[in-house]
């Protein structure tokens, strides 16, 4: 490693600026005499380019859930299966004419499951997806 005079002075605890006459201190003195006008800068935006969003209209609603089949779809996070068991139980207790069908969505939480959604379109009337953690 190269050792210059500045490094050696620093090693023994002496600021090189003290020996050389500190320009930092000199600048502080000048500031006391006349505060410079505040300079304005123009900064560039660091953000990237988000894609345009295509609005997707929501599916038509049902007039009632009575007598209908509701798919309960887990996104695969821990606890979602047990939670949806309780949702099924709630329907059984409160809206017994509703048929519930539990399914675990295939793949990771962000993956599509075209086979499942095709099944729901054919055999189901509504879907509740859950939940998080």
């Amino acid at each position: 490693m190269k050792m210059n005079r500045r490094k050696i002075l620093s090693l023994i605890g002496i600021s090189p600026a003290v020996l050389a006459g500190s320009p930092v201190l000199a600048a502080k003195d000048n500031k006391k005499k006349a505060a410079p006008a505040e300079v304005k800068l123009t900064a560039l935006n660091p953000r990237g380019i988000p894609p345009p969003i295509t609005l997707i209209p929501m599916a038509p609603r049902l007039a009632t859930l009575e007598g209908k089949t509701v798919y309960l779809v887990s996104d695969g996070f821990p606890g979602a299966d047990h939670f949806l068991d309780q949702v099924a139980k709630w329907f059984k207790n409160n809206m017994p004419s509703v048929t519930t069908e539990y399914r675990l969505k295939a793949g990771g939480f962000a993956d599509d499951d075209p086979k499942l959604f095709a099944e729901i379109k054919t055999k189901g009337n509504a879907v509740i997806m859950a939940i998080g953690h």
Partner: protein
Amino acid sequence: MVTIAFKDLALTNCAKRGMPLQRIAFTPHPVWGKTDEQMYAYLEGNDPVSGKPLMKEVVDSLTRPLTAEESKTGIVTPPTGAPTFTDTADSLQQYFLDNGMTDTMPIIIPTQEKVDAMLKGTSHKPDEVVGKMTPAQGAFPPWSYTVQQVAVNAVMAGATPEYFPTILAIASTGISALFSSTNSLVSAAVINGPIRDKLTMNYGIGAMGPFNQPNATIGRAWTLMSRNLDGGGICGETYMGSQGNVINYSNLIIPENEKDSPWPPFHVQKGFKPEENVISFFFGFCITQGQGGKGLGVKPIPLYHQAMSANVAPFASLFGALFLLDPLVANGLGDLGYKTKEQLGDWLQKNTTVVVKDVKSMLFSGLPRGPEAASLTDDSVIPKWSRLDAFNFVVVGGQTNPYHQLANMSYRVSASIDKWA
């Protein structure tokens, strides 16, 4: 139905997916770890956002006729702010901070002059599209960005134009350092080739500490890009790490100590030539120290491989293992007979074992799939990782002691730095 902890994420992500008025009913958080009775009580209670009975809201959501707004079609362009901001340096610092465009520490103000200087570090044109990035693949629509937008972030991080090709190589992969998961994940990048010396990167004493400008600012630029180029790093929305991770400030930037290693460098393992400049990416849970492990007290040569196996055993097999070996450890392993990294990986894969019943009780560790799975019993002893390439080794450090660190991280991809010069 979504738990309240994910409210902002659910609402904003539905909007980004073109369903800004998606009907969502919220439950208390969490459901994981709650009893059936506790979860049923959630259903009998109120939605914590609307204050209305939860299941009534669910039923209403499925039966209430759609409004005109909910049936709307068309295309919306999300705003990202003005192309430039003009103010005093202090006010600009505050503006960047307030608008979530920093890592919360002061930045270098990215003036046109500084950005132009940064752009001189590459032969690529400022308006060239570098790539696409998202805070989580599949979950959020990816954003795109140009060479100039990468340069703005590089300036903010305190990088110099000489570092810019490396930063562009990072950007070209689209890998966010702030991956949105509740797991508070971290990212690492291993740098190989002559560029390490050209940039005077530190691969010796304190290589992974805050002691070297290229190591630090290249890593910081990655974090800033991960906030600004893809809309990431917004807590509760595009960042969900429950506890967060201090490594996300500047990430693990690891120039390999090629000259003191007994083995070929990492990028050569991946098919590159030694003279090529390459950055290789890792991703996973975190990093920990390997001192004090089994076998390290053995003389004259400590049994490093045994310590490595013991240290890596508790890791989740969802991710692999990245071993960061001081050259003293790497050369010691060479003396023990491990003449290649592959040979060492092979030993670790075969000897780092687990009992099947223990795997079944673990999170983020899985059992093997395929025909061999059929013959397993709860008492079967199996390798914790079924794949040899789960283990990766990089030599880094200044040989002040034969130490190693290890990360529960998987290799993702390698990218050419030279391509961006």
